[in-house]
């Protein structure tokens, strides 16, 4: 009897996890009332993107890889420089912070990732929305913030908005892929690899998130120039006022 119950539980897990993956789609949102036409006279402060690249262990833990991260940073940096002129408004690059300021920027990048992840999980993802966020969706409300302390970020006084870009890639290890294959044989869905990317525009006076493009399943291998360009285009597509187009499918 217990065995039958366990098999039923396994099938339930299969259904729920498969459904979850199918529903985890890319989404973009804009704060109510926010518009940014091209050549609006506004200045965008571009922070150096946070790029984390590594492997996903058999148990699903992130294991950073320094070489892959360096490749990702290099290629994503090149792509961003090629695309930032097409964002439609004046873009200035934040200077490389040092000391306390570097810590402050890094902490804000981590907070931006946590906020973006929460938006995906609890406002975008239909099957898992928080009841209070469902109410927001019904009223067309998209209210998320990093907090007014963003005004203390280096360079914030010289710009209107801050552009935050964060990507994390975990390539499935051999052990993880083997687990995925065995799980598939057993009819169970186990995800191998994580490819998350978030791009967000933040009001540098209030900390309010004005625009967000957040996707838990991004394309493009950031370790290659072509893949990094595809990823960066995906991140910046639908940026308010921009002419960045998504790369055509290969």
């Amino acid at each position: 009897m217990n065995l039958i119950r366990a098999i039923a539980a396994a099938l339930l897990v299969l259904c729920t996890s498969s459904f979850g993956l199918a529903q985890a789609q890319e989404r973009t949102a804009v704060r109510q009332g926010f518009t940014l036409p091209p050549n609006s006279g506004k200045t965008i402060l571009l922070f150096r993107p946070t790029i984390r690249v590594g492997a996903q262990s058999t148990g699903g833990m992130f294991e950073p890889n320094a070489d892959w991260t360096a490749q990702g940073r290099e290629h994503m940096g090149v792509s961003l420089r090629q695309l930032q002129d097409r964002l439609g408004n004046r873009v200035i690059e934040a200077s490389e912070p040092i000391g306390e300021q570097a810590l402050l920027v890094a902490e804000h990048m981590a907070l931006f990732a946590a906020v973006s992840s929460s938006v995906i999980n609890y406002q975008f993802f239909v099957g898992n929305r928080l009841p209070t966020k469902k109410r927001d969706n019904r009223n067309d409300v998209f209210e998320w913030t990093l907090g007014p302390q963003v005004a203390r970020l280096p360079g914030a006084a010289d710009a209107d908005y801050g552009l935050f870009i964060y990507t994390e890639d975990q390539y499935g290890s051999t052990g993880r892929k083997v687990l995925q294959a065995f799980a598939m044989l057993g009819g169970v869905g186990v995800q191998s690899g994580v490819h998350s990317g978030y791009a967000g525009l933040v009001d540098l006076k209030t900390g309010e998130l004005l625009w967000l493009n957040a996707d838990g399943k991004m394309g493009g291998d950031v370790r290659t120039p072509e893949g990094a360009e595809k990823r960066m285009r995906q991140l910046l597509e639908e940026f308010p006022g921009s002419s960045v187009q998504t790369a055509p499918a290969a």
Partner: protein
Amino acid sequence: MLKSLLKPVLLISAAAALTAPAALSANDLIKSGETVAVAKSTLSITPPRDWNKLSARPGKKAETWTLDGEQLNDISFYSDIAPGEPLLRERSKKRDPLPKLRSNSLLTDVPEFLEGTYRAHFGIAVFSLGASKPTKFLNEPAIQFTYEYVTPDELTRRGEAIAVLRSGKLFMITYDAPKLHFFERNIEDYRAVVASAKIA
């Protein structure tokens, strides 16, 4: 024979269940002004504002409420934790055991019990306990304490907790949020929840 063939599949299923997003699970609305029992216990709360109760429980005798997601503001209730029991659900009793409440645990041991649990369960290397002070909770002598730690996503978080031991069993309410903005933004909401706590 059938059992031995199915065993790996069932183990993987269990692992997938633990790692899969809480898909299709309904998170519940906790309405302001309504009294609700928490963590499957006789501990009740009457919140002065709306909260969301996450369907995923961090432990058998635990429950989490949030406003924007547990990464941004997390109130967790732990109720009726008996000696020999961990605070959170153990991923693996053999490979990743969690600290257990001891029968001779004192209120002053609770902060280290929480620290040990967080370090082991969340893989935290940087954790520091802040100030602690005696207080009253559920009409009994209790301890209130603060802490700060860095999670593997490189975000610094702060926490505040209040705990009481009733007949050797632990009742605790914690609040965890990023140090930047979110901790200060909702700390008074947490304290209002604590102030409304009652036990039958």
